[in-house]
């Protein structure tokens, strides 16, 4: 029916398990959360609805229940380099990317969708972005990105892929469309951009050129204090691993 993969099997157990894993082991500092309630709120965002009509605000209750402080200076935004970011963030110990927050942690690498007029999850197939924008998973990440940006403070880091086709700063993109518009100027002291090329990859983009220049200009116009570094050494070492 749809072109994308169906809902991940055992989704409920995985989401609830991850929720408890996060509050008991990964980051107990967030305190007590009701993981069953969180699962219900998550599910209710998209079940019994046309799977092409899910909006970010449908996840509002889920976000309210999972929200916690993001420590200042630890936010790490990124585009086109998820595995690299996961290595670099060290599961929240060095930086806290959106996947290291409770709301991001429970949804990472999973897939889901419902169906109209039925309370069940669709395990057969789910709509892709190209089939419809307002699908359950993309709206989830939009909401998560918006929330993540709104609660980031201090020095924020942005990791971009200088070898990416189409530019290091993709437009449209999550960072461009959902995160930048939700950054809180009064809470942010500086934005640090790192443009890192793949090892032996093309140096398609770098600070001060092309899409990165567009990004720097946009942020400066918005009133942020911006710095940009090419091939930030720390991150380069991670790339050498592959």
């Amino acid at each position, binding site marked *: 029916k749809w072109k994308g993969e169906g809902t991940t099997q055992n989704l409920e*157990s995985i989401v609830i398990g991850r929720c408890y894993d996060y509050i008991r082991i990964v980051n107990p500092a967030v305190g007590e959360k009701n993981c069953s309630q969180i699962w219900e709120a998550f599910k209710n965002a998209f079940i019994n609805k046309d799977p092409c009509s899910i909006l970010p605000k449908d996840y509002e209750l889920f976000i309210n229940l999972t929200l916690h402080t993001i420590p200042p200076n630890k936010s790490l935004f990124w585009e086109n380099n998820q595995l690299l970011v996961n290595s670099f963030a060290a599961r929240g110990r060095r930086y806290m990317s959106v996947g290291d927050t409770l709301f991001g942690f429970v949804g990472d690498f999973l897939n889901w969708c419902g169906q109209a007029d039925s309370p069940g999850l669709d395990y057969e197939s789910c709509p892709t972005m190209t089939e419809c924008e307002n699908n359950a998973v993309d709206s989830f990440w939009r909401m998560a990105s918006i929330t993540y940006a709104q609660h980031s403070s201090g020095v924020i880091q942005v990791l971009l892929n200088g070898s990416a086709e189409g530019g290091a700063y993709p437009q449209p993109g999550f960072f461009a469309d959902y995160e930048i518009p939700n950054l809180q100027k009064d809470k942010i002291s500086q934005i640090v951009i790192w443009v890192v090329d793949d090892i032996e990859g093309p140096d398609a983009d770098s600070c001060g050129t092309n899409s990165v220049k567009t990004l720097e200009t946009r942020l400066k116009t918005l009133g942020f204090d911006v710095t940009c570094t090419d091939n930030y050494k720390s991150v380069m070492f*991670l790339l050498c691993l592959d």
Partner: protein
Amino acid sequence: MPLQQGSARVRQRTVLLVGIAVLLAALVLAVVLASLLTHGRHEVSPKMLKWKDRGTTKNLQEVILGRCYNYITAQHPELGDKDCLKIWESLKDAFIYKNPCNITPEDYQPLMELASHPIPCNKSLFWSKTGDLVHRYTKSNQNFLTLEDTLLGYMADRVSWCGDPSAPGINYESCPKRNECESNPGSVFWKMASKMFAEAACGVVQVMLNGSVEAGAFRSSSIFGSIEIFNLDPDKVTEVHIWLMQNIGGPQSESCSGQSIQRLISILEERNFRIICEDNYRPVQLLQCVHNPDHTDCRLCTNSS
């Protein structure tokens, strides 16, 4: 007149005595009621044994189940036939309602059988005193698997559990430390899982040791030194590669030529394994360099061999 006073005094005394009796009865009733009401509430905790280590992880069932499904669904779909509910039940049965100092390998046998799976050759990565670094490495390089990257290890990592003969059979307050008793649920689990992990290894195996530890990189008392090396199967394992990692910026307590390493090499050679030892294996060192980018040991990959 004297007669009237006498009877009034008797009446007063009677009232007083009745009053006292009523008060006493009420007091006794209150005490009885209080002990009955609080009896149930106190029943659970004070009867449980008290230990020195942290107790069972709260929501253990949800965490274990979630991790099991996460592993077989999202990460290793080839293990799709595993029954996570049965696996959880077999873990619980291994320790619930038991005295946590009396756990045996037999208690874990059903769990081990249900949750074990084959490990591809040349991918087993053992470790000792390098927990943080080795797991950062396997997260970024999926060519190697530590015990904690297998289903059993993945479910149990950083989780604790122990039982108690009193209801509800699980002790969330405390669990025995190794020095309180060796046959505790955690120690027995990890010893068994380590033994099986070693037995399953084939081809070339790797081990990451710490060359900055004062007590020596290889210790016979560690799980690696006491269990894993003796359970490698010489019919399946051909070679052992030792990666001896020192902290960036030292101390350089030991290198491949060091005493404890020589001891390890001789033990392994006696069992007919070929050994290769490498100081500061470069790919892992690069990971260390992420947090020490300006150190002289940390030149970028384009310059190094």
